[in-house]
């Protein structure tokens, strides 16, 4: 970790004396080179694997029998089929939602307990971030393959698409404001056009991600929550129906892309 902190300091110093602004993508590449190709998300992945196997909750059970899409206990490749319809909950669920479901059904937590503390922060490590990092890492290198065969999957996709284009609030913003055209940026931050397959793949395939500026692994649920904050919406609730519908739209738009998360972002 010392080397990591040193690298961060060096990067900040370089940024301060830089004459030409580098794009965030270039800065990330420099950072990655400085820490020897390692992604700090690996620390979350290791912690998540331990949590996955640990007997937790009132039922003192692990998550090893959790069905996250490819049957109970199957982790490898499971993220590539999410979100999907689950018969036991009769709902379309994304990874975070499914982890909540398993924490309730297998481990005996209340839904409220399982949903609280969805995102880590300074001095606060939460199980959810680590579990998300662990599970998603087991799909690295595999193709996204989200199905819309079930009527509820199709409906979630259609609702998610409408949410993507829904403009509201004091700034008239919607997802589409920043993510509906090619080659745009906010300040120096490149914006993917999420209505196009190639951009949707590049974006979706690299979340969750270790955020260099925050020192945290951030999940897709966090990404959506923070986008809506910046869009001046009220607060998107963790694993809410709108968040899962929007994720279904985005994940399906990224189908065919090779999953490469957890990634590393500015």
């Amino acid at each position, binding site marked *: 970790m010392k080397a990591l902190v040193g690298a961060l300091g060096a990067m900040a110093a370089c940024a301060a004396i830089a004459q030409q*602004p580098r794009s965030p993508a270039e800065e990330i590449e420099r950072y990655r080179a400085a820490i020897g190709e390692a992604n700090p998300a690996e620390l979350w992945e290791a912690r998540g694997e331990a949590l996955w196997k640990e007997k937790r909750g009132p039922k003192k059970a692990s998550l090893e029998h959790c069905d996250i899409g490819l049957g109970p206990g199957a982790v490898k490749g499971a993220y590539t089929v999410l979100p999907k319809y689950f018969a036991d909950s009769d709902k379309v669920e994304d990874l975070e939602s499914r982890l909540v479901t398993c924490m309730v059904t297998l481990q005996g937590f209340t839904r409220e307990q399982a949903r609280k503390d969805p995102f880590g922060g300074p001095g606060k490590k939460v199980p959810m971030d680590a579990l998300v990092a662990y599970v998603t890492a087991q799909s690295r290198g595999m193709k996204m393959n989200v199905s819309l065969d079930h009527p509820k999957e199709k409906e979630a996709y259609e609702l998610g698409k*409408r949410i993507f284009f829904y403009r*509201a*609030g004091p700034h*008239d913003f919607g997802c589409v404001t920043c993510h509906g055209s090619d080659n745009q940026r*906010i300040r*120096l931050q490149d914006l993917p056009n999420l209505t196009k397959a190639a951009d949707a793949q590049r974006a979706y395939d690299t979340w969750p991600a270790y955020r260099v500026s925050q020192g945290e692994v951030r999940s897709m649920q966090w990404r959506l929550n923070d986008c809506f904050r910046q869009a001046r919406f009220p*607060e998107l609730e963790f694993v809410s129906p*709108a968040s899962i519908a929007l994720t279904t739209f985005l994940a399906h738009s990224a189908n065919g892309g090779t999953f490469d998360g957890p990634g590393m972002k500015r």
Partner: protein
Amino acid sequence: MSAQHVDLDAKTVAVLKSSFKANGQATLDRLDQDEVQKLCSGHDLAQPVDKAVAERIEKSQQATIKYPQGSLLGDWKNGEKIAQSGVGKQYSDDPTAVAGGNCYACHQLTKAELAYGTIGPSLYNFGKLRGFTPETQRYAYAKVYNAEAFSACSNMPRFGYHGILTEQQIKDVVALLMDPESPVNK
């Protein structure tokens, strides 16, 4: 539109309302769309907004613009601060803090600021290119006040109409664009 689409549109609103919670100044009524937002939320972006609809939006929004008495030219230095600041209306913002317009998030303005976005067009040399006329000042004021009056379904927020910026702040932004001494025109 088919009955299925109408159902899905209604369900989208219901799903949104069940999925957000109020947080500070960002209350749930922000999910309620006004007519412009509704008309500009079409889910097939391949289709540009219908010409008749665009004209209707622009006409209705023209009528909302309130021009101040006297000079429209404020202080460009304060305008630059407003252009730099993205504070305002997020639930994470202090609601008593002075809000910004965050112009640089989407527009190039001065030569000195290299960290500008590209969602909107470059506004470098705005006044110099268009002429330092009262008409252009008036246009700049109105455009910042309510961009939908000129370009239906624009990505640009309606800074005056929604009360994001005050009248004086919009005048300061107009000065940033229109004062011959502003770095925008250097």
